[in-house]
């Protein structure tokens, strides 16, 4: 082993001593929440003092918390979240891809300026304008409605930016060939740009998905009615109830955390963006 590799492996070992404890530290709270969701609610606090392995690992393993959660009040909230998320992703992708297509493909005067204005204005943090927006939405009768919850995810600036960058990379010669074959702008969008951009579309869908899945301030402002509660608000209410069932609360937390993680794992591979350039050499 030469000198450099030796020194490198020593540095690597030193780094391990930091990386592993930090990684475990970051995992610990979630791991504890997972374990707590798998034990009967009263067991969580029974084993806290003194701190032993029983504090973390259940004595009785059970899925009871999940079963009760999904048959109780949390179910409508989860369904609300799913409705909002699905509509937001579908609507958001449609609006963003149309705009991105115009900004990437159609040459019209003032294109750069329009692009700049759109991106900058959508980069204003949504939280900062959520409160005035909620009073506007109340005036428009959008409070306590699905539409009111969905709309803020439509026209997402980052999704537009992301798709535009991708569309710019698709060889123009493909569109020109299609135009010769008699396709209009919309046909080219539908038959060429959309099918070729699966990776970027999945990426943009995830941006919108995460935005809506995590949303808390906006649903709190716009949907005070219990009927229109979303999952995050329901969990927060859980914690503020007196005599809360901690087992169910942790089950709700794990469920809300796990769904985006599972989706991320499923779609991870699509991110690379497998763009088909086979039709053209440029």
């Amino acid at each position: 082993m030469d000198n450099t590799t030796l020194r490198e492996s020593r540095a690597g070992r030193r780094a391990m001593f930091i990386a592993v404890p930090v990684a475990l530290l970051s995992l610990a709270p979630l791991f504890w929440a997972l374990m707590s969701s798998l034990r009967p609610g009263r067991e969580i606090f029974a084993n806290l003092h003194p701190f032993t392995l029983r504090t973390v690992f259940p004595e009785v393993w059970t899925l009871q918390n999940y079963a009760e959660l999904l048959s109780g009040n949390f179910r409508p909230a989860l369904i609300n979240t799913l409705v909002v998320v699905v509509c937001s992703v579908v609507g958001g992708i449609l609006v963003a891809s149309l705009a991105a297509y115009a900004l990437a493909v159609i040459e019209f005067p003032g294109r750069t300026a329009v692009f700049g204005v759109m991106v900058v204005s959508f980069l204003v943090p949504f939280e900062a304008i959520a409160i005035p927006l909620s009073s506007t939405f109340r005036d428009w009768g959008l409070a306590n409605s699905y539409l009111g919850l969905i709309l803020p995810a439509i026209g997402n600036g980052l999704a537009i930016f992301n798709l535009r960058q991708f569309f710019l990379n698709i060889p123009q010669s493909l569109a020109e060939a299609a135009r010769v074959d008699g396709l209009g702008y919309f046909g080219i969008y539908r038959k060429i740009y959309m099918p070729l951009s699966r990776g970027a579309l999945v990426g943009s869908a995830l941006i919108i998905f995460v935005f809506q899945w995590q949303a808390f301030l906006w649903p709190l402002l716009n949907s005070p009615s219990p009927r229109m509660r979303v999952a995050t608000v329901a969990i927060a209410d859980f914690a503020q109830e007196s005599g809360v069932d901690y087992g169910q609360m942790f089950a709700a937390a794990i469920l809300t955390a796990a769904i985006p993680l599972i989706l991320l794992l499923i779609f991870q591979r699509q991110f690379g963006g497998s763009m088909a350039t086979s039709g053209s050499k440029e």
Partner: protein
Amino acid sequence: MSGNAAGMLSRHGSTPFPADKGRAAGAPAVRRRTRHWRRWVTAAVFLLPAFVALLMLRVVPTVEAVTLALGDGERVGTWENFEAIFTDPLFTGSLRTTLLFGVIINPLQIALALFLAVVLTQRIPLVGLWRTLILLPVAVPQVVSAIVWLVLLRPDGPLNSFLERFGMPSVPWLINPRYALWSIIIVCSWVGVGYWMTFLVAGIQEIPRSLYEAAEIDGAGTLRRFRHITLPGVRRQLLFVLVADTVANFLVFAPVRILTQGGPARSTDLVMHNIFERAYTLGDLQSASAATIVLVLILLVVVSIQFRLLPGKE
């Protein structure tokens, strides 16, 4: 959270612009003008939905906020609401808390993120696994992580029980004004550090290894290599993290709402929570709007100062 989206931005942001194609040459002027016009209309149709969303969701609320902030219910054009919030000790106190929070949490998170980024770009077995575990908390909705910490930090909760087991005193995390803000800082950093680290890891990986090898031959130690190679090499990512992290920390809401509701003794009443209480609990939309405008102005000032301080090349 807009944070996750920023990851996408950096992933696709480097795509080069292809050169614009020249317009079809030699077409008669009249035809060109009609085509021109048609293209403009087509573009407008494609852009219309996004444009309407922009108008409804950004422009209207901004106008609404300004009108509310400058109105007294009947007419517009008074500074009353601003005078009211700046003479309200609850608001000025909340601004002070927010600034204190920012002054502590931003350097702390960025230093930790940079340190971990350097550690996790060394040659370590299973490096991807450790990075993923550190990133994991950001994939969890903030509300969920706040709930988990709410139980962890209870006076009789597992964290104190753990401390006692090792002979340390238990800490009144959320119920003592001296510790509550630190508790919020811990929770926010548990979420944030791994996220910001990811950008810096990407930046460090772009630095050519040959630079480090050359420095090593010259006998430069770890600290010197960090100062003269790593730090200048991640300048651009560092600027992005600095700005994005500061903005994110000004807008912290869910952890405060769930862990402390601004208390005890208003020691964790960060400005977003203060604005929320104005609008929602007190129903005072005018002072909430004035406070929102103050927040946005502070954000603009802070961000532009940061851009001055760290002039990234390019």
